[in-house]
């Protein structure tokens, strides 16, 4: 029996019904009186020198209120380093021009801003801005970009970041191996394709504060906005709307600085909403990687050494590429005990679309390589893929490749067994239709890099009628972050969910809670709410203990009442207790600050050190049917089994896992942002296809709850992990079906036929 009242129950999220009836006011739904419409002029070239910008004709167009070029904003640059961090020095070379002035480095780079009375006029004004470009040679392939003499995207060279992990003795480990398995894996650019394009409205209020109501995963961007446009940090306020999907694509600053500049220069409210095409052109992408792996194994399957080289295309500006590359490096050896590891990683600048955060943050790319590699080891040794993994899986107390000791439960074998068992009877082949099965296990961090000194704050208050307010600056991109905070407060304070309100984040009203990224919000803000609610609970029970003349431990809170546990008829409505406390000046509100564990950065030479607070573990298993005549891959059945630590709201967890699985299936089979010479050839959702309701069957979800996570009630994080193992599992299944390795995504019919030698 569960010891919880509401934790673990699949409650309806408080935001669900308002979304179903269309009452939720998203960023694009918000209007201000006298509002102007903003537009962005973008470079048509992936690499060019700007010879001349002349905005005079645009400025003269009736209805145009403001045209801004780099010259008008002091050639402002934006520091696009890790957003929302609290404790860190800045990484060098992380600056990005807000508007380009001397050269453009990718197609779609912003060159000028317009604000006009109507959208139509703003669009016309864009056409009237004269920009003379002199196209320059570009570089569009990271391997080319690393060669001497390649065009340099930004000085001094195209190396955006390098990371290395050395653990043990790689040469000795390889020498001790009976077999060495070598493969190269490739994954493409991927588009986030959230259904809500980037949008927001900004205005300057009566205090002179720039307000920006926007769809963002990062409230703390107000600091970057302030610094970029040259105003104090307390003069920028960000109001976070419910986000129409993010997946990391709304982690970097997108429209915020543009909006702030236009509002500041016009002193009128300005709205800026991207079209779908502009969204795809202007925001980050998932990194394409080339991953070369060498793994030494004994004949019994035990890995003696793993050497990996990871090359990521950073695109035209660094953004979060150094950190994505770091994540890939740290997770490159997978959830396995390997004494000798050597990983070299590099992120390389090109004139391609810039790449940055996307669900998994480099973890899924590595997972594709290390899990395909495990199956190739199994094939080479003639072993069962589960057996090869079983003899190498990490266990609690083992160390990762960076020397970090795993403290929480590691239910890898359990997850693999359950996922495979749930696939059931194997579907037989039918003529040219070959059926295959594959799975992939993974580890994926939750919580930020420990040297970012991450914190979250939450304010919880009990009102005099027994209802509860939560103020916590946690953006909610759809994972149910805010609803889960209510559920946690409900559990601790015994107040029904319907009597709890959690505000959407607003830097003026909700304490800063950090980013909704890195699968950190339930872990961090969940703990902050737990702390705050627990403090109020203590006040309430201490006061009630005097009233009932019982020890506080003998009292409990439930259904909006305080009561004596062994005699529940002796009880009092929480409202009455709240009024007693208030009359005596006892605090009924509490602001809590939760701190993740803090560590120093890893050793730059060896990559050794503690990196993340903890990891989530699990397995995805899939059965596919491959038509060997057409190359078409059909997903027959899939199962995701993850140790989520504790499912606070199982409906939300299952939804996250099914959604992550679907995104992963798209990554495996369908999604490919085609970029040729810096030009996106899949510029809209007509060309860039994402899964629909008829493409794949629903993934069966099996939840394991070890209760050992660092989140509230032992929860781990599941947002990113849900996606991580999917694509390699599919590739393993297709390889199993056709007997030929598939080492590149997406697994299109063309790629399958080529693997079969039919193209």
């Amino acid at each position, binding site marked *: 029996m569960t010891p919880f009242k509401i934790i673990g129950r699949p409650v309806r999220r408080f935001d669900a019904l308002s*979304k179903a009836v269309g009452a939720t006011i998203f960023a694009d739904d918000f209007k201000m009186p006298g509002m102007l419409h903003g537009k962005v002029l973008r470079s048509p070239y992936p690499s060019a020198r700007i010879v001349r910008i002349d905005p005079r004709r645009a400025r003269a167009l009736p209805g145009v209120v403001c045209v801004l070029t780099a010259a008008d904003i002091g050639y402002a640059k934006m520091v696009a380093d890790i957003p929302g961090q609290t404790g860190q020095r800045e990484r060098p070379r992380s600056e990005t021009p807000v508007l380009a002035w001397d050269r453009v480095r990718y197609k779609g780079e912003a060159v000028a801003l317009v604000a006009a009375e109507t959208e139509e006029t703003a669009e016309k004004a864009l056409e009237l801005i004269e920009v003379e470009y002199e196209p320059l040679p570009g570089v569009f392939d990271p391997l080319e970009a690393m060669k001497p003499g390649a065009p340099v995207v930004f000085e001094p060279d195209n190396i955006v970041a390098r990371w290395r992990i050395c653990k043990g003795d790689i040469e000795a480990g390889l020498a001790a191996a009976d077999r060495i398995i070598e493969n190269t894996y490739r994954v493409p650019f991927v588009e986030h394709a959230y259904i809500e394009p980037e949008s927001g409205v900004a205005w300057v209020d009566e205090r002179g504060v720039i307000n920006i109501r926007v769809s963002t995963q990062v409230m703390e961007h107000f600091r970057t906005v302030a610094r970029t446009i040259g105003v104090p940090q307390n003069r920028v306020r960000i109001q976070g709307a419910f986000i129409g999907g993010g997946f990391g694509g709304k982690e970097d600053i997108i429209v915020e600085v543009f909006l702030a500049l236009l509002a500041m220069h016009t002193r009128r409210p300005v709205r800026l909403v991207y079209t779908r095409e502009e969204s795809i052109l202007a925001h980050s992408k998932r990194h394409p990687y080339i991953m070369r792996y060498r793994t030494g194994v004994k004949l019994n399957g035990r890995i003696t050494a793993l050497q990996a080289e990871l090359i990521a295309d950073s695109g035209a500006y660094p953004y979060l590429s150094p950190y994505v590359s770091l994540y890939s490096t740290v997770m490159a050896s997978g959830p396995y005990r390997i004494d000798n590891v050597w990983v070299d990683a590099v992120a390389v600048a090109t004139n391609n679309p810039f790449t940055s955060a996307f669900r998994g943050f480099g973890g899924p790319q590595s997972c594709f390589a290390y899990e395909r590699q495990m199956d190739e080891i199994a094939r080479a040794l003639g072993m069962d893929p589960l057996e090869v993994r079983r003899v190498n899986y990490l266990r609690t107390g083992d160390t990762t490749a960076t020397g970090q000791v795993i403290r929480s439960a590691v239910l890898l074998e359990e997850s693999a067994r359950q996922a495979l068992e749930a696939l059931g009877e194997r579907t037989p082949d039918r003529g040219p239709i070959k059926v295959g099965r594959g799975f992939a296990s993974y580890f994926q961090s939750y919580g930020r890099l420990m040297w970012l000194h991450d914190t979250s704050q939450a304010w919880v208050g009990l009102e005099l009628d027994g209802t509860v307010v939560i103020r916590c600056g946690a953006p909610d991109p759809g994972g149910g972050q805010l609803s889960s905070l209510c559920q946690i407060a409900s559990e601790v304070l015994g107040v029904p969910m319907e009597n709890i309100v959690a505000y959407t984040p607003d830097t003026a009203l909700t304490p800063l809670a950090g980013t909704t990224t890195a699968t950190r919000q339930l872990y961090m803000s969940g703990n902050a709410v737990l702390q705050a609610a627990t403090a109020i609970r203590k006040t309430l029970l201490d006061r009630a203990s005097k009233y009932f003349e019982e020890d506080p431990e003998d009292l409990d809170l439930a259904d909006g009442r305080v009561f004596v546990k062994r005699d529940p008829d002796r009880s009092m409505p929480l409202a009455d207790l709240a009024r007693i406390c208030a009359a005596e000046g006892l605090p009924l509100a509490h602001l809590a600050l939760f701190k993740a564990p803090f560590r120093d950065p890893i050793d730059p030479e060896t990559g050794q050190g503690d990196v993340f607070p903890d990891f989530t573990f699990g397995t995805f298993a899939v059965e596919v049917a491959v038509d060997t005549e057409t190359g078409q891959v059909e997903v027959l059945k899939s199962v995701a089994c993850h140790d989520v630590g504790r499912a606070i709201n199982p409906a939300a967890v299952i939804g996250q896992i099914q959604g992550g699985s679907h995104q992963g299936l798209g990554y495996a089979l369908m999604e490919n942002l085609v970029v040729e010479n810096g030009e996106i050839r899949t510029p809209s959702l007509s060309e860039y296809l994402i899964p629909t309701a008829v493409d794949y069957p629903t993934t069966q979800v099996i939840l394991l709850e070890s209760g050992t996570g660092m989140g509230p009630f032992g929860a781990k994080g599941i947002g990113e992990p849900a996606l991580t193992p999917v694509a390699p599992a599919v590739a393993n299944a297709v390889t199993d079906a056709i007997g030929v390795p598939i080492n590149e995504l997406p697994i299109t019919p063309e790629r399958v036929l080529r693997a079969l030698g039919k193209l």
Partner: protein
Amino acid sequence: METKLITLNINGRTHQVALKPNVTLLRALRDLGYTDVKNGCEKGDCGACAVLLNGRAVNSCLVLAWQADGAEIITAAGLGTIGRPHPIQEALADSGGIQCGFCIPGIVIAVKALLDRNPHPAEEEIREAISGNLCRCTGYGLIVEGIKGITESAGSKESANL
């Protein structure tokens, strides 16, 4: 371009608006404050802007406002409110199939159109009916389960209410 005065009957309210011929129904609806009609792509790929036009589900970005002159238009907000949600909306909220929710008003419309012509659809028919509505969060599983729940429980109720 010349404007023309047209009549849009939206969720039981009548609006007379002067619009140019190139204004889409999506733009007209949002400008009139019907922000439950979402703009996800403006070219018929995502389905977020779906409305009922004389009972048929259409992507309002692919209809010109002039073409809807005099027609009856129902949006998701016209089917139900927080106080009185439509059974489809209630079922979706209960299903756990709403995450970011940006696609949901369009899905509500697609399901309404489906159930109007087929009160007891099979799962494949439900999936087909919402296949023009892109959702990036859920993988569609809980959405489909939620809709199956209504059609199953509707067996004893008056399906005309759906």
